[in-house]
């Protein structure tokens, strides 16, 4: 394998999203095996690594998007919950105010009767 391919392969192995999740010793072993390959074999491996990472990137993007959607919804719900509580307080106050108004009207009626 020529030096250019070796460098490329090394870069891909170092940054591989799939290989991030495995034991460093195994990663080292895989890396060593790849470095022994001839040109056509190295080309095949480079393609595998590139395509794998592209697929993983796509999935990661989807994860990030759905993650954000859940976060956004939670914010909306938090805000709606606060609104609802405000409404309930206002309603409580209105009720109290209405009762006061009724009491006052009744008192006025009584006074007028007198």
């Amino acid at each position, binding site marked *: 394998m020529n030096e250019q391919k070796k460098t490329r392969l090394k*870069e*891909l192995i170092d*940054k*591989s*999203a*799939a*290989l*991030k*999740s*495995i*034991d460093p*010793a*195994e990663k080292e*072993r*895989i890396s060593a*095996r*790849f470095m022994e*390959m*001839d040109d*056509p*074999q190295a*080309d*095949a*491996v480079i*393609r*595998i*690594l*590139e*395509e*794998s*990472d*592209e*697929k*993983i*990137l*796509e*999935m*990661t*993007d*989807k*994860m*990030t*998007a*759905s*993650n954000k*959607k*859940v976060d956004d*919804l*939670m914010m*909306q*719900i938090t805000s*709606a*919950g606060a*609104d*609802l*509580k405000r*409404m*309930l307080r206002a*309603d*409580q106050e209105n009720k109290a105010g209405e009762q006061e108004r009724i009491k006052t009207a009744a008192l006025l009626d009584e006074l007028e009767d007198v």
Partner: protein
Amino acid sequence: MAPPEKPQGQESTPPPEKMDQWKYKDLEGQVNGFVGTVQKDVNAVAEHFNMVPPIIDVTKFNDAGECTDKNLANRMEEKITNPATLAKVISMAQWANVLKSALRNFKDNEINLRDAIDESLIKIREASDMRFSREGDSMAGLSPTLDSGNLELRRHEVTEAEAKAKQIELLKAENERLSQGDAAPKEAITQIFSQDVNMGINAKKFTNAEELNLSPSLVENLRKYCQRTKEGVIMDIDLGEVGAQTIDETPIIEQSPGSKTIKVFVTPSKDGRFLQLSWDVRIPKQAGSVPVLHHNVLNIALDASAYQKTGEETSYEKPNLVKQATDENAEAQNEYVEQYKEAIAKLKEGRPGDRIVFQRPITESKGDTGTRSYTAEIVVVKMHAIDGRTDQYAVYRREVAPERTRYQKMNAQDEASMDNLPSLPAGSTEGRISMMESREATPAQELRGIARSYKVALEEFSSESSALSLNFRTDRSRFDKALENVFALVENYGVNGKTVQMLKNAGFKVEDIAGDEGRTIRVAMTDPRTKEVKSKEIEMAS
């Protein structure tokens, strides 16, 4: 979402911080908390408007925000006269459902991401394990592109293959350390068990040194260790924080996250030729105090030159697509794997219950007494994928020459179903792969398993409380799939008294009706949500 455009010459690899994002999100817990909060808020509204009891249940609102309970809707309209407050209550309930839906989407994406990583790892490991010659032979089997057919075939192997590869690597690394000094093998053993428990893998599948691919020097180290301990030892091994998992045992339970310590028993066999490691894990049920014992035994042959297959799992012989090329009899093994691949490829197009039969010569090592050769008949059966995601296959094996034995199920713990695999017609499958007629089989056990799964799906589906507990496995597709499977099974295999009773127990209505020719039965089930009756009339083979 499509991946963002990459500048010329840059890698497609996601930046590390991006890869890590999904790992640390305990979204399920957060969403559960939020839905609980929403329910509290909505309950407060109900209380405020003197609507207790009953409380306003967020599960009684559909994704469009419509209240599906007419009585509740009427009471709300009657009591909550302020349109703005009513709208807000409805939107809160609606949002709770949208949030759950978004979380389901998140979980699906997470599964897809894990699948993508698993598939990539398989591909990469396979490439690195290929045995290629210096004379310029091509790397057989190394496809330069991600072949979707092959990936499909491997998908059901991924977890086990990955777990095994991981364990092998850990053991090899530990072996090197042990070879250099006096270090006790406790760490290696800890790692084996930690992997087993953390990954929810049943380590019974790795019952001998050969399957674990233990190096002779590691076996030698374990033997020395065992000699030192003489009578064997008990190790308390702290596995640290163990995540939630499903253990492949009956009853299936979810284990709560927490710190786990297990006792590991290291015992030499009486004749000194085996080292037995056994361990018990007591897993508390989430909603009760009855512990479930998860017991595993690992036998390791101490004679490094002649690995023995030991213990009760001697019939386990599922082809391992990853380490095929490293086997000593690589040619025979590869041929077997090719047959297996071909069988799976054909079955992919088939229906549940379809099977492929082929034969292969097997030579087993008998240790000191030499080897034993015989012809085995392998049966690969397409199973029923209740989750609708992954095809599943059962593999059976039996000796056909020099003697005929009963079938042994090789890739599952459910040994009870072995007895029900029927005898196959002699001579019908010699030397070739052939699709058998489904009607020749009557796997009542299989049908029972499907009906049981169906019943569970039915119960979950009809349980309102499960909607709040965010059980992602329960959805319409699973329900419909289970129903479809039951109909297909009845159609393929027919029914007898036992299966009729079993179907009835699972909630089906089974009745005889007059048919044009022979016997016809109707199997019916009422959809618990729509109340729609789904039925199938099946003409039974005479």
